[in-house]
């Protein structure tokens, strides 16, 4: 559980970090909170020769809410997300989800940028970002580009981010209405056995569903945005029958694997229950 040798760099601007990454290429990795990367290095599953620590770059630490859009700097910690009063009010699902990540010690270190860039299907933020239809801003030697969270994840640990790019910020619209993040885990500090993020809005008539978005975590090798299920709730409103149909549609779109958290049939059943609960809870909060 001792990492291999590496050089440590601590640039103080995004430009310097991108330049370093460009110069060092494949042998370098960006270090954020280190709570995913360092364990991998201790297991020697990752053996980067250079670590580029983003901690000293103040430009990457911010939470701004402007004209209905939230912008979060990549180096914002999960702890900071939890404690941002305005964010908790405007997009409460962020706080609800963040509180389900690891434990307080992990959340003091872990960043939103690291969580979404990591590409680990176990991470909770990627599914949430898909639910929120967030946009990731990437900066590389060729400049800046934006990628939708729903387009970002290719496979476990494979994302649309180029090795030479740094994820600088994340943005998403504020989301009024009902929300819920339900997560089943074996214990505090554990990744999800099954988790679902749900956003729902009631139409002006107080009955119909004007907006629905559902995403699931750790039930496939990427987060799953359940488009059909979301559409179904929007079309049919939220009632017992539509919930069951939406849940069935969600379960049809996941591909969980048999592991220490349990066999596939169990995971599907638990995921259905978690999703059902999340939809009901979100609807009750609209």
């Amino acid at each position: 559980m001792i990492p291999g040798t590496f050089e440590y760099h601590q640039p103080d601007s995004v430009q310097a970090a991108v330049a370093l990454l460009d110069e060092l290429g494949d042998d370098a990795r960006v270090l954020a909170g280190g709570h995913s990367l360092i364990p991998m290095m201790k297991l020697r599953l990752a053996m980067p020769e250079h670590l580029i620590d983003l901690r000293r770059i103040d430009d990457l630490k911010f939470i701004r809410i402007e004209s209905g859009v939230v912008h979060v700097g990549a180096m914002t910690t999960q702890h900071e997300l939890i404690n941002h009063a305005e964010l908790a009010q405007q997009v409460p699902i962020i706080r609800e989800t963040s509180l389900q990540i690891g434990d307080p010690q992990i959340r003091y270190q872990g960043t939103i940028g690291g969580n979404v860039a990591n590409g680990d299907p176990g991470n909770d933020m990627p599914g949430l970002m898909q639910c929120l239809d967030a946009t990731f801003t990437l900066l590389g030697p060729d400049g800046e580009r934006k990628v939708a969270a729903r387009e970002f994840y290719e496979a476990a640990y494979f994302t649309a981010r180029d090795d030479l790019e740094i994820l600088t910020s994340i943005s998403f619209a504020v989301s009024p209405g009902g929300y819920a993040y339900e997560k089943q885990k074996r214990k505090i500090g554990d990744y999800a056995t099954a988790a679902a993020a749900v956003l729902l809005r009631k139409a002006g008539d107080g009955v119909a569903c004007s907006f629905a978005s559902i995403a699931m975590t750790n039930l496939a090798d990427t987060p799953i945005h359940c488009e059909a299920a979301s559409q179904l709730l929007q079309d049919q409103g939220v009632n017992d029958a539509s919930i069951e149909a939406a849940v069935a549609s969600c379960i049809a779109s996941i591909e969980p694997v048999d592991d220490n958290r349990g066999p596939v049939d169990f995971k599907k059943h638990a995921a259905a229950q978690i999703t059902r609960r999340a939809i009901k809870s979100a609807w009750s909060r609209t």
Partner: protein
Amino acid sequence: MSASAPSMKERQAALKGLGTSRKRVEDARFTQGKGNYVDDIKLPGMLYGDFVRSQHAHAYVKSIDTSAALALPGVVAVLTAKDLEPLNLHWMPTLAGDKQMVLADGKVLFQGQEVAFVVAESRYIAADAIDLVQVEYEELPVLVDPFKAELPDAPVLREDIADAKEGAHGPRRHPNHIFTWEMGEKEATESILASAPVVAEEMVYYHRTHPCPLETCGSVASMDKVNGKLTLYGTFQAPHVVRTVASLLSGIAEHNIRVVSPDIGGGFGNKVGVYPGYVCSIVASIVTGLPVKWVEDRMENLMSTAFARDYWMQGKIAATEDGKILGLWCHTTADHGAFDACADPTKFPAGFMNICTGSYDIGTAYLAVDGIYTNKAPGGVAYRCSFRVTEAAYFIERMIEVLAIKLNMDAAELRLKNFIRKDQFPYHSALGWEYDSGDYHTAWNKALEAVNYKELRTEQAAKVEAFKAGETRQLMGIGLCHFTEIVGAGPVKNCDILGMGMFDSCEIRIHPTGSAIARLGTISQGQGHATTFAQILASEIGISADDITIEEGDTDTAPYGLGTYGSRSTPVAGAATAMAGRKIRAKAQMIAAYLLEVHDNDVEWEVDRFVVKGAPERFKTMQEIAYASYNQAIPGVEPGLEAVSYYDPPNMTYPFGAYICVMDIDVDTGTSSIRQFYALDDCGTRINPMIIEGQVHGGLTEALAIALGQEIAYDELGNVKTGTLMDFFIPTAWETPNYTTDYTETPSPHHPIGAKGVGESPNVGGVPCFSNAINDAFRPFGLTQTRMPHDHWRIWQTANKLGLHG
């Protein structure tokens, strides 16, 4: 008497003796990070060792190329079996009469087995170097299922003893068979089974788990080549035995070896045995002439050091139609892994598994245990229990439930009907033990009343109806357990470890100013010995516990003892402490009588002093006596005030308890939540109620872990699937429920202060209690038995198989 003279009650309280909830004196340093653990030890010039380990569960080692590792700057040596062979240290004896490879000798038998030992100037260089050691393996078929060990196509694991027809514990019938141990009356039991009105049968599996102490295992060996002395610091639960073993193995005279157990961060049986790391650090220090440290990491600890349990217990229990138990039969298949490295007293290859008749008056019983080799890590230690007592308690407490189902009877009532009665003690069990004392009916009734048992059953029945009506997806389980332990090994006549009788010891020195130091042969790993042993002594010799230092763990200063495990410290070393205290008092009495100018028999003991009978104003306090013993010539009495006692217990002690757990279970997610846990413990005389409560809380939490998910699981290739704390369940405060603790107090008749030991009771009783709650929740739906660990998916699967998912 002056107005300010303290009353007898005040003097008593000032001693902080037996029965006082004295705060733990150890905690000041532990809570401030000022403990001194093995990994805190830094000696000048110290080198660091690290292991190359096998990734295969079964393979021949064709070659080991160490040249690239040796070429790395900072690497001092790489040891392989070939290097150890000339010293005859490539194998070592185990505590169970088997032998174990120190470093892979031609083959590896489990994943994580030690193959080569790299010694380097820093821990980091050592870690880099192990990646450079090239090992060529030839993979062999893997045996993970003990029930396949004797099939015709089973691979032979231990080729070194393939032809040995006799093992340390009698005949072997197959190369993968280690021993068969039988107790009780086979024929008589089987004929009862054949004729009894009711027989319930079940396979009770207690899965493989691991003690996983907070601090992993490690050692620092320092061979001083000038004076020929070896100092060995290590995580040893039995430092004196380690010294003897080290001497026998290395040929270094025993007086030239000093073994030190510094602070130990939890043991739970994991630190009883001798590990290759200890041996390699010693050899490396001898080879290099420098101190060598070896400390394993968490994954190494889980993968390679001693596991616990892994008992497949096939049971049959016979009863009359109204529930009087007639006989008990048990056949256990014990998966021992690659080497038989169980830590049991020599004559007990399955520990005290023959306590499996539990708290019940069962006239006839039979037990057989087959030890089997598989391609898994060795061990089989007593994880927070006396030797295999947890397995036994789990077995009988499950069998009682299974029988209750068969009889369609309430399981609490079935227990009441079969408890050994108070007037039957001392009770001779069918499997050979003499239970010292107990009052099970009182404890059980108290427990049932405390939780309102009848109401709970009514509520449970209503919940079942609501579930059937589709109104809830939750079920309620009521877990019952009445356990009897056997601890305090043990009488030298039948208990030894590597030939050393399992006595223990205490040596006391009273200083001239009336404070004292006591040294014991045991070693605390968090139990609070420095607190409680001082309390025993305070009550015996009238010196405040605050003025008594307790020291353990340094073989150069402490008297010889067999160490701390199996809840033996209080029953054995605690008894030695009381006995040594009594010797001090006997001498003090002579001194007091002399000082008071009366006959020895004319003074009597009163809290902290000897008083002239009938003249209470004439007395000498222990402090005055201590001073006198150093500064006055007393005719016929040697100067000084010291005593030593080596205590050979006449019997074991038999703590018991009544536990009840109420759980709610979600059948769709398989999650469970504990609503209530009531734990009544009877550990005889209570030395420190606060420490007892702490021990019970800790032990119950470990029990919760085991019952609900803590497991060392292997895949079919022998890969460890649960080798990190991500997958190996250690509960946090979040998962830990509230516990209600309670007690009755039935002293041990043969122990000097009546104490029985408590550290392990909550684990012994807790596991069946939690497990029974899960099982009980599904009883109304036709379940008789579901397997531990009860993690979410297994609970879900149980519900699924019962058709509860529609």
